[in-house]
């Protein structure tokens, strides 16, 4: 609670006590001056105590030519109630005070609830480091503002501290909690030479880190900027309500004026009828109180804010409320294969002989891998790395000579005095070796020794462990169509797609082809349905920005991805895609609920008020009660079930 809220609370309590005392007093006439207008002086004093700021703002509003705000509504409603009580000589001033008192209580509660939820949402996103421990050349350590640390300096991160700036570990080992960056709850082990990102929390050991960026360019700054800016992108629903409020408030004021004047005037014209001025004016005042638009105006941005906050707790960074809104309408998800659904590393999946049948002899297999690995040992191609992993031993370079790399074919070399050829089918043809075509999808490495075919190795891209679950969860989240794009061959693409349960595949695409394909899919969409593209952000920035929603995976490292994407998934778990979709759907559902609840209850109360059935007390509920319901409902957007896998 801040100072202003404390002051407000004191005023509310004081006014409530005084009002109760006045109400319980059997005869106000016993007090000095109590006889004038049935004690109006006392009632007015309490009224001013509780409502002076509203009155001040209302007058300032009139002075600045901004009538028709809620302060104005409250002033007219309460002053009107006073005037009515004086005119009728009923001495019933309590209602005016009660209206003001409840309005202020409601405002207080709103400001408290909104403030609380705002802080708890902000806390989810708050990964800002406050300081860095800079090591001076003489070895002393100084606490400085992270902004003041230059690139290439050494900083020390103690256990329990946040890593303030991106860098490389120079010395020390520890485990890092990267939950704020990746949503991953398992700690990550780091040792000297590892790159660490700012925003992670050092858990166990002291680390000396050489910074590789300035604070402003570090991961944590980029994420904070993205998240803070997200609140400034307004959703269509919010725009709608802002526009709605702009015409709604004046409209209600004129309606109230009409309600106060027209029916009595009509009744005046009909002989024998009492115009009932005071009753119609009372109805008009009730009307004014009911109509305050604040529940709508506050609950919609709050819902989006809560949704964005909840998402960022899951390691999903959403660039704005408008993005969340579009994401909720996504029906088609297009995914890149490598890096999104697969790990992008190859693994030996099979070894075949000349009849394209699985080799069974372990010794033969070992020799095949060994020959291929040795021949490829000078290459930096991912295939060579995968072979080396499968080989599992140090490469003895002394056994290899005469390595010749034939671009587009493969490699020939002399190993242990034998001539070995390792490459694709074209190489086999070129060498005049009788080979067999492999029917297994994957990357095929043929091996020939001394002009004789030795067999081939099948390398397959490894699927991410949760990719199939992710596709299934997307379908459950309401995605109608999943599409996979890849530059790989058709056989590989179709195998991956059928394993994952993906609906449609486009293979052998060049990077430009992906943009065209996404455009084609988008034009095939219904006018209200949207398309999301998911990629790893490395070479698909154009596609990310072209799609209705671009989702970049494992984005913490790549600037281009953060720039181009609308949503950045901090880690590379594809299950975050359906989670993001579910969060957006839930948020939009809450927004719609709030619009319906607020407009519905207010609409009913307005009608009741116009017919004289609703009194001031119901009016207060329609204003304050509805707002509290809407705020509490909005907060729900922050929580998302993560148990659906």
């Amino acid at each position, binding site marked *: 609670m801040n100072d202003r809220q404390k002051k407000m609370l004191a005023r509310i309590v004081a006014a409530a006590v005084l009002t109760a005392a006045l109400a319980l007093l059997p005869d106000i006439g016993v007090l000095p001056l109590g006889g004038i207008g049935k004690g109006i002086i006392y009632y007015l004093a309490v009224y001013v105590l509780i409502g002076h700021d509203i009155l001040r*703002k209302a007058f300032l509003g009139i002075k*600045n030519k901004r009538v028709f705000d809620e302060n104005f509504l409250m002033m007219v409603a309460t002053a009107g109630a006073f005037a009515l009580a004086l005119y009728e000589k009923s001495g019933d001033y309590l209602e005016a005070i009660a209206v003001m008192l409840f309005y202020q209580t409601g405002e207080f509660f709103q*400001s408290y609830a909104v403030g609380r939820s705002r802080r708890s*949402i902000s806390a989810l996103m708050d990964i800002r480091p406050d300081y860095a421990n800079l090591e001076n050349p003489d070895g002393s350590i100084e606490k400085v503002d992270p902004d003041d640390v230059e690139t290439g300096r050494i900083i020390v991160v103690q256990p329990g501290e946040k890593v303030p700036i991106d860098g490389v570990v120079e010395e020390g080992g520890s485990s890092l909690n990267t939950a704020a960056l990746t949503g991953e709850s398992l700690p990550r082990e780091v040792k000297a030479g590892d790159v660490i990102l700012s925003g992670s929390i050092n858990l166990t050991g002291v680390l000396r880190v050489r910074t590789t960026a300035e604070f402003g360019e570090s991961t944590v700054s980029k994420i904070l900027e993205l998240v803070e800016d997200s609140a400034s992108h307004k959703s269509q629903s919010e725009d709608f309500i802002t526009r709605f409020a702009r015409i709604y408030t004046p409209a209600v004021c004129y309606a109230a004026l009409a309600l106060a004047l027209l029916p009595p005037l009509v009744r005046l014209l009909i002989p024998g009828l009492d115009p009932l001025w005071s009753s119609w004016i009372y109805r008009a005042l009730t009307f004014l109180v009911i109509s305050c638009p604040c529940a709508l105006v*506050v609950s919609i941005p709050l819902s989006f804010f809560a949704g964005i906050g909840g998402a960022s707790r899951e390691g999903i960074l959403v660039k704005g409320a408008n993005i969340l809104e579009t994401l909720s309408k996504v029906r088609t998800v297009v995914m890149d294969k490598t890096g999104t659904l697969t790990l992008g590393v190859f693994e030996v999946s099979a070894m075949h002989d000349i009849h394209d049948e699985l080799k069974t002899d372990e010794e033969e297999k070992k020799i095949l891998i060994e020959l291929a690995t040795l021949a490829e040992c000078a290459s930096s191609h991912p295939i060579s790395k995968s072979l080396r992993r499968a080989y599992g031993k140090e490469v003895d370079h002394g056994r290899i000579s005469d390595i010749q790399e034939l671009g587009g074919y493969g490699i020939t070399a002399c190993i242990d005095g034998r001539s070995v050829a390792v490459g694709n089918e074209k190489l086999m043809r070129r060498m005049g070796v009788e080979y067999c075509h492999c029917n297994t999808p994957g990357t095929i490495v043929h091996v020939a020794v001394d002009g004789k075919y030795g067999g081939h190795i099948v390398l397959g891209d490894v699927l991410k462990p949760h990719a199939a679950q992710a596709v299934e969860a997307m379908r459950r989240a309401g995605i109608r169509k999943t599409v996979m794009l890849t530059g790989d061959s058709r056989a590989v693409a179709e195998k991956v797609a059928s394993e994952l349960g993906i609906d449609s595949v486009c293979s052998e695409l060049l990077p430009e082809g992906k943009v065209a394909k996404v455009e084609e899919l988008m034009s095939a969409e219904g006018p209200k349905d949207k398309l999301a593209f998911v990629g790893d952000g490395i070479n698909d920035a154009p596609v990310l920005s072209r799609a209705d929603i671009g989702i970049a995976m494992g984005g913490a490292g790549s600037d281009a991805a953060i720039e181009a994407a609308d949503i950045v998934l901090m880690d590379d778990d594809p299950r975050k895609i359906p989670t993001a979709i579910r969060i957006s759907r839930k948020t939009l559902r809450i927004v719609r609920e709030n619009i319906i609840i607020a407009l519905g209850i207010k609409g009913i109360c307005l009608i009741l008020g116009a017919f004289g059935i609703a009194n001031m007390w119901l009016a207060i509920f329609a204003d304050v009660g509805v707002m509290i319901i809407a705020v509490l409902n909005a907060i729900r957007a922050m929580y998302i079930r993560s148990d659906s896998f």
Partner: protein
Amino acid sequence: MKKSFKIDVDCANCANLVEAEIKKIPGVKDACVVFMTQKMKIEFEEGADPDAVISQAMKAAKKVEPDFCILD
């Protein structure tokens, strides 16, 4: 040039109104007042005097929302 301020603003609607007013001030290229994060960002035009613009912005903001203020 861009500057970011911590602010105190009471309601979402007031923040929208203040934003609209500040955008009209000469020397302001773009402005953004966010109720949720209680932050205001002003992007100044080339050659504008930030201090003068800010004091004008405060005046305009107070007109719409008397309780509006910049913290620290």
